[in-house]
């Protein structure tokens, strides 16, 4: 029994994804919500690589590569947007960045 059943990896990916969703829904600070998005992306990366192992093809790794590149680009632009929002509203609470009337 020195082999790990492949379903365990997928279950771990599901747990991490659900934790990311929980963080995204329940936290109010913009930066923590952003970090929950990164957590979700990492969980999806894990499932891609698990399926790549199962099908014995390298294409899953390529998808993870592109997900990482896009996540890095998104992090850069998203953090720049957060900086601009902070400069204008002086708050990082997403409930207060709301100028619509009720």
């Amino acid at each position: 029994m020195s082999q790990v059943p492949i379903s365990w990896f997928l279950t771990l990916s599901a747990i991490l994804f659900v934790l990311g969703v929980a963080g995204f829904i329940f936290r109010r600070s913009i930066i923590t919500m952003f970090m929950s998005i990164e957590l979700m992306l990492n969980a999806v990366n894990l499932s891609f690589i698990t399926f790549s192992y199962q099908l014995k093809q390298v294409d899953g790794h390529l998808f993870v590569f592109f997900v990482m590149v896009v996540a890095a680009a998104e992090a850069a632009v998203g953090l720049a947007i957060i900086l601009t929002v902070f400069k204008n509203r002086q708050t990082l609470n997403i409930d207060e960045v709301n100028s619509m009337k009720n």
Partner: protein
Amino acid sequence: MDVILFLVFAIIAVLAAINVVVQTHPIASAVSLIGVMGSLAVLYLLLGAEFIAAAQVIVYAGAVMVLFIFVIMLLNAGAEARKGRSFMASLLGAPVLIALLALLAWFVERIYPEGMGVHFGGFTGGSPESIGHALFTTYMLPFEITSILVLIAIVGAVVLARKELD
């Protein structure tokens, strides 16, 4: 041996992920997220994805999270204040999430009841050569497009974050 390795790093990943969501101060969340990414890198090594494991540490844990930590330090984001939470959320929150998780886990176990096992060395196609070969032959177009995407992101970030010239 592989099972012990998987269990240790999976438990570290889950605990660190719970810590990301639970901690109030953003720096503590960021450091826990680095822990998640590190343990996921070890799990990628177990799955034979050596290049992706190294790329995970270099790009995600070593660059993207440094960017997060810089922004948190620059904004001096303090601990998040616990404002009033809606009654529905605190009642239904955890149970609904656990239900979602149980549904996902049940589906996974149904599809892979006796699935193949993962052992270190089971998949040797994750070397930099095979990734490079696939990247520059089959996936050439996405590669070029993502490079332009990164260029756009760089220009966008510089424009957004610079000082306004009054």
